[in-house]
């Protein structure tokens, strides 16, 4: 069945204006013409009439679009001190209009919930800084308790976490580290060829890998893989009140959830880094033997002479300890401080990755600056 367009008819007789509505007043029909006519009618500064009477054609169909129009009309007319008479409308419409009149019963004072310093971004940043340092402090306290043998941490949880962030990460770490070593060998070989010193590719790859790239690549993989999963897991536990229920049993979430995860990552990241160093060197070796035609023995001897000082390897491992700590703490912190809706869970997971990677790069730079100033390089 086709719908008829909305029509608004205005007839004026002395003090009273009759507004007759006809056609189909349904949401699907456009109302541009009617709205225009209405705003023309209502726009003059002064009016010669005191009252408006509304009527509707009995054959008209109607839904909320009519009610909305009538409510708007009444509001605008009463603002101009013109009387409104709805008595010509069917009872059903009048009832619905009075429903909309009833004021909301629950008028609590929402908003103003935030404190003043939460409204600007600097304040918000300082607040989260304070929150994070508190979290870190509590973590340190928790670790001390653990060392003194008074922790609620379960070692099974720790081993499970070790497997999840250690052994399970081997495939991806292998892939990334191998390709990093391989790429560096290609890049290096082009430059070194100019000096006819291609064998130094072995030095370049091995030193870059153990000092820098091994730790960095593992940290970035871990931030995306494990840090995000910590944030998501703890965040959804918080949403489902699981953390609250731990607390009502008197089991601190810091000991029970955060400690095994952060410690596992702290111990696993250096191990993975060591593994990544080796795989990266093998990546370089692949290029050295397959593309540049060195023998593997030659390449290995060159690598060995480049790494005569084990400090090169240790410095990378020291960095990776710090990286593991950063990723674990940030991931757990973001999870534990998730708000109570699913949007904020998504945000905390994202920001756990972003913040960890940023901090990792900053921390890496600090380490390098420190090492070179102290003459450790």
């Amino acid at each position, binding site marked *: 069945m086709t719908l008829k367009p909305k029509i608004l008819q205005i007839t004026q007789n002395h003090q009273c204006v009759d507004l007759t509505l006809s056609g189909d007043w349904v949401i699907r029909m456009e109302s541009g013409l009617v709205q225009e006519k209405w705003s023309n009618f209502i726009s003059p500064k002064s009016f010669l009439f005191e009252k408006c009477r509304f009527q509707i054609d009995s054959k008209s169909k109607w839904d909320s679009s009519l009610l909305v129009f009538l409510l708007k009309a009444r509001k605008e007319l009463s603002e101009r001190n013109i009387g409104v008479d709805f008595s010509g409308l069917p009872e059903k419409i009048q009832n619905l209009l009075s429903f909309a009149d009833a*004021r909301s019963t629950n008028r609590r004072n929402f908003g103003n919930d935030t*404190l003043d310093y939460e409204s600007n971004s600097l304040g918000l940043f300082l607040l989260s800084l304070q929150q994070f340092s508190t979290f870190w402090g509590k973590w340190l306290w928790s670790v001390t308790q653990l060392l003194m043998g008074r922790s609620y941490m*379960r070692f099974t949880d720790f081993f499970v976490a070790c497997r999840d962030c250690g052994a399970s990460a081997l495939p991806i770490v292998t892939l990334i580290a191998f390709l990093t070593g391989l790429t560096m060998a290609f890049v290096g070989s082009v430059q070194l060829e100019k000096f006819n010193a291609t064998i130094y590719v072995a030095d370049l790859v091995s030193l870059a890998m153990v000092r820098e790239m091994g730790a960095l690549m593992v940290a970035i993989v871990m931030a995306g893989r494990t840090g995000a999963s910590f944030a998501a897991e703890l965040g959804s536990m918080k949403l489902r009140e699981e953390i609250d229920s731990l*607390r009502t049993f008197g*089991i601190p979430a810091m000991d029970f959830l955060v400690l095994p995860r952060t410690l596992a990552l702290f111990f696993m990241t250096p191990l993975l880094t060591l593994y990544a160093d080796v795989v990266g060197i093998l990546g370089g070796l692949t290029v050295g033997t397959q593309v540049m035609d060195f023998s593997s023995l030659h390449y290995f001897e060159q690598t060995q002479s480049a790494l005569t000082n084990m400090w090169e390897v240790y410095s990378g491992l020291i960095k990776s300890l710090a990286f593991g700590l950063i990723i674990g703490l940030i991931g757990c912190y973001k999870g534990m401080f998730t708000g109570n809706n699913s949007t904020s869970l998504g945000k905390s997971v994202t920001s756990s990755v972003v913040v960890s990677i940023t901090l990792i790069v900053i921390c890496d730079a600090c380490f390098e600056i420190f090492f070179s100033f102290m003459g450790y390089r």
Partner: protein
Amino acid sequence: MSSDPDKNWILRADSLLLKYGRNMVLKDVSFELTQGDCLTIMGSSGCGKSTLLKSMVGLLRPSKGNIEFRNGLLWGKSDLPNQEAVANFGVLFQGSALWGSMNLLENISLPLETFSELKAAEIEEIAAYKLSLVGLAGCEHLYPSQLSGGMQKRAGLARALSMDPQILFLDEPSAGLDPINSRQLDELILELKQSLGISFVVVTHELESIFAISDDSIFLSPSEKTIIERGAPGVLKSSSNNPEVVRFLSRTAAEDQNTAG
């Protein structure tokens, strides 16, 4: 509120003031729970029922006032609740809040493993017994996600019972349950109350279960932000002078919409 020496109280709230940030939710909340009773916290949505419950189970520190158990105060100087007081009670959360990474047996054993000196085999026996109490015998190795809503509620109850508490706090136990399951849960509560002598504090607005299980109740009002009525719900329905309470208990809509605003 002065305590009646004849009454055998097991939990006392003393002029609590509860706030979220700057938002005051409740003030001057004082009441006591008699041993073996079931106390219902009632009130329309947004009156602070759940907030009050949070402060009683150690999740929200009151800005003023304290919760007192027989063996001491819940809130000491630190932000964390007093461990000895916490051992008095178990909590069933609205969404059950079972730990999703563990099966039911592990869920119930965890508090026992943490706080008791028992051997693993004994703990397992106790956990299985608690599950059988709530009619879930044989479900030990299922994970929470494999259970229906009603079963999750019962498993949550079993976990709340794990440390043999004297008081159980239930947050909207019948929310999201069908009438049959909700009735069964009420019967379970009554049975636990009679056979184990556990006292209950229940937050609910399910009228049928209010009348079925509670001996005593307090009624919170969102406009007054405090307790406006207390007593047995059956008595309140017929004899309360407060129109808001009578309307709530007899399930009638407000005659004048503007009074609550």
